[in-house]
Each structure stands twice: as structure tokens, then as C-alpha cells.
């Protein structure tokens, strides 16, 4: 059974992100967003390719070598063939890769879609176009091995401002104890725990591996056996 040690980069290594998107333009943009944020990127055009890369397509892939280890998967939702949601499911069903955080990106801010992805174990649901600040925040969260001890109600979703529609919901995250309300404002929840948004200070040299596995925003799917 894979442990957290397989997920986070050790010592001075950069985060390795697998980006999945059928759009050339978006692939290029996400690639650069990640490179500028000092991440290693592997960009593929489909869920099938992503599974091939991970070695989940039935054939033995090349993953097993440390420096090819994927620390984060960012996938578009709407793709021909296998959707990002289907890819997410397959990854979460795999014992080798279920601990890798998966982020879904979509141009459509649909509440049921968001909820479904989070239910299935997605770390976050980002509304496109993805910004540098989104990537920086994600990287921060993952490098720090942040978990949902902070009440599980960190707001992840940005408002979709270009459709002229009011945002359907400003919260993409529901903790296992409280369902997210469609009308909740886009602000951190009034929880008593410490702030979930730490200042961005990713110092790879001093980052230590956490001893507990990374958790996705929805705890219900993952078993915390160690």
C-alpha cells in the first residue's frame, strides 16, 4: 500500500505535476503557470494518456523511478473520451495513486459538478481560466501536506465572472459534517481553527515529509489507516 512518502517530493525536488487537458491553448498555459511556479510539468492531452503515463492502463509504466513521481494531477473536466471526472475516479480507485491530490479545472461553475468531483475525492475544483495565484496556493497546500483539520470548509472556488451570471456558489468544498450551502459567501468560514491560507513561503530545503497521508477535501473516501 502506497504511503505518503511516495507522494511528496523529498528535500530539494520540485513538485511534479501531471496536467491533463485536450485544449492546446490551455495545456500551454497551465504548463507555463506551473513552470513559473517552479514545478516540473508533464502535460498530456487526454485521460487515456494520463493513465498510460501513470502506468494504470494495464501495461507497466515508467513510474517507479523517484524523479518521475507525480505529486499532483490537474485535469480539465470536459474532455472527449474520458472526462476529468472519470479520470479522477480511476485514480482514486487505484491503490498506487489514490493518495495523489487531483485538481479539477473547468470553465463551467456548476454546483452539482463541483460537488460530484469533491465527493469523488478531488482536492479542489478550479474555475478556468486558472490563475497564477491558484497555482501558487495549490503548491503551498501540497508542499505543506495540509490536511482538512481546519474544519474542512476552506473555500476553493472562484466566482465565474465572465458569463454575466451570478455565481452559483462560492464554495466548492463541503466537509463531511456540513453540506455546502449554495448561497455561502466567498470568504473563509468562521471556524475557530487556524487560518487555512498560509502565506506563500515554500522553502523546499526545509520542508519535511508529513507522516500522515495527504487527504483530499472529502475525507469520506480515504481511509486513514496509518
Amino acid at each position: 500500500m502506497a504511503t505518503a512518502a511516495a507522494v511528496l517530493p523529498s528535500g530539494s525536488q520540485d513538485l511534479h505535476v501531471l496536467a491533463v487537458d485536450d485544449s492546446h491553448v490551455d495545456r500551454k498555459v497551465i504548463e507555463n503557470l506551473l513552470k513559473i511556479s517552479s514545478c516540473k510539468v508533464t502535460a498530456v492531452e487526454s485521460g487515456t494518456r494520463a493513465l498510460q503515463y501513470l502506468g494504470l492502463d494495464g501495461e507497466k509504466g515508467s513510474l517507479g523511478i523517484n524523479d518521475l513521481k507525480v505529486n499532483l494531477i490537474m485535469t480539465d473536466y470536459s474532455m472527449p473520451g474520458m472526462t476529468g471526472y472519470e479520470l479522477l475516479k480511476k485514480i482514486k480507485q487505484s491503490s498506487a495513486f489514490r493518495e495523489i491530490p487531483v485538481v479539477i479545472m473547468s470553465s463551467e461553475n456548476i454546483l452539482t459538478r463541483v460537488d460530484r468531483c469533491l465527493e469523488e475525492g478531488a482536492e479542489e475544483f478550479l474555475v478556468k481560466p486558472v490563475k497564477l495565484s491558484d497555482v501558487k496556493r495549490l503548491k503551498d497546500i501540497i508542499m505543506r501536506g495540509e490536511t482538512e483539520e481546519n474544519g474542512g470548509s476552506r473555500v476553493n472556488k472562484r466566482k465565474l465572472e465572465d458569463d454575466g451570471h451570478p455565481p452559483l456558489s462560492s464554495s466548492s468544498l463541503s466537509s463531511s459534517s456540513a453540506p455546502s450551502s449554495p448561497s455561502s459567501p466567498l470568504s473563509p468560514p468562521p471556524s475557530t481553527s487556524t487560518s487555512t491560507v498560509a502565506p506563500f513561503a515554500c522553502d523546499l530545503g526545509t520542508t519535511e515529509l508529513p507522516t500522515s497521508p495527504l487527504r483530499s477535501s472529502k475525507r469520506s473516501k480515504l481511509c486513514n489507516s496509518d
Partner: protein
Amino acid sequence: MDVVQLQRQLVDYRASLYHEAFLDEQFTQLQELQDENNPDFVVEVVSLFFEDSERLLNELTKALEQQSIDFKRLDAHVHQLKGSSSSIGAQRVQKVCIAFRNDCEEQNVEGCLKCLQQVKHEYSLVKTKLETMFKLEQQILAAGGSVPM
């Protein structure tokens, strides 16, 4: 024309593109992703956008010429165009795509045809504008200046 004049021209030109909503803040984001490691990033992404768009516009034209129109397919193409125009900040193109998708949903053929015309028009406008902007940038570089950010 000297470098300073060219630079001023570029700055003014860019400002007008934002002012007239040809471009939005997403384009600015792209510029922020360009650095010495990726000095041609913006031009490269925009070129991909041109390629993608031209392909999609062809597909859309063909789809609307069919006897029996496949609105789902049509919508899928518009969705892609909307996505890529949004990713580079081509706001006017994106806005037409939104209206276009509504017409697809309503299976409104006339509406779709109008939208197609509109989106082709907006696309060719933004393409010309961006090419002009890149040309100005090239001129500045050729004159030994640096491109203002």
C-alpha cells in the same frame, strides 16, 4: 520612428485593446507568464489560439451547412472556442461564444448562423489587432529597445 515613439505607440495600442474589450485581464496574466526562460510564450500561445480557432471556425461552418444540424456537436465546438478565447483573454470572441451556445441549446438555426458570422468577425478583428501589436513589439526590439510591460 525612434524607439521611444514606438514604445509609446505600443503602450497606447495595448491600452486601446483593453479599452475596447478586445482583450481582458487574462491577457495580462499571460504576459506575466513570460520571462527569460519563456521569452516567446505570449506569441506561442496566441499562435496556438489562432490555429485552434481557425480549425473550429471551419468545423462550425461545415456543421451549419449540414441538412440536419447536429447541435450537440456544434455546441461542443463552440464550447472549445469559448474556452480557448477565455484562456488568452479574447473577451469579445468569448462573449459571442456565450450567445452562440445559447442558440445551440435552443436549436435556433438562424441565431446560430448569425453568431457564426459574428464570431468570425470578432475573431478576425482580434487576430489583426494582436498581429499588429506583435509587429510593434518586433519593431521595438529591432530598433534596439525593450518591450514595455
